């Protein structure tokens, strides 16, 4: 009973402290991106520019994407770990299980983000191919 109440309080506090700022930031960023996209589209139409084509699919394309992704993920992960170790342990001497949480938490996030990114890329490529298929305006 007490555990349930504590969980509810934690969820409520998380919604207030995390979800609301994230949702607000998301809406602001998306609004700015939409405005930029509309402005750019207007400028492109004014110049009579062709819309950019989607990514070219194929085994070579996927291999290159996988290599690029692996390099970026590994490089970014290492850079972050170096910064965390240097700052939290070298400079401010922050103890606890912070480093372990950083290593495992960032790895978890990578594990979630990588398949989602690959799926989104595949869907985007498929949509672009369908749009550029002959007989389709």
């Amino acid at each position, binding site marked *: 009973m007490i555990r349930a109440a504590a*969980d509810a309080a*934690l*969820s409520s506090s*998380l919604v207030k402290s*995390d979800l609301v700022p*994230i949702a607000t930031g998301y809406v*602001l960023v998306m609004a*700015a991106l939409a*405005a*930029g996209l509309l*402005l750019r589209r207007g*400028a492109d139409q004014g110049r009579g520019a062709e819309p950019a084509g989607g990514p070219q699919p194929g085994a070579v394309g996927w291999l290159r994407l996988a290599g690029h992704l692996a*390099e*970026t*993920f590994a*490089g*970014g*992960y*290492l*850079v*972050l770990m170096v*910064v965390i170790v240097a700052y939290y342990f070298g400079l401010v001497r922050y103890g606890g299980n912070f480093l372990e*949480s*950083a290593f495992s*938490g*960032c790895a*978890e*996030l*990578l594990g979630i*983000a990588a398949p989602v990114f690959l799926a989104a890329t595949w869907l985007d490529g498929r949509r672009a191919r369908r749009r550029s298929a002959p007989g389709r305006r």
Partner: protein
Amino acid sequence: MAEHPVLGYLVWAVLFGALFAWEGLALSHISGTVPTLSAAVHAIMRYPFGRWALFAFWLWLGWHFFIRGWQFLLRA
């Protein structure tokens, strides 16, 4: 919110406001010399280390917002 001085939040609000104002100025083409945020990110991402640094920043944000403290999402 009560644990921190209001000034701290105000500084963050001003910083984010300035960022959006800068982006708005760049998008409005009033000044042709102001690059948009996406143009700046594109320039940084041309170099591997820039790409790693940006991804590290993204990872740090995601870790703080979504992984740390969200026990109900990834409960052990």
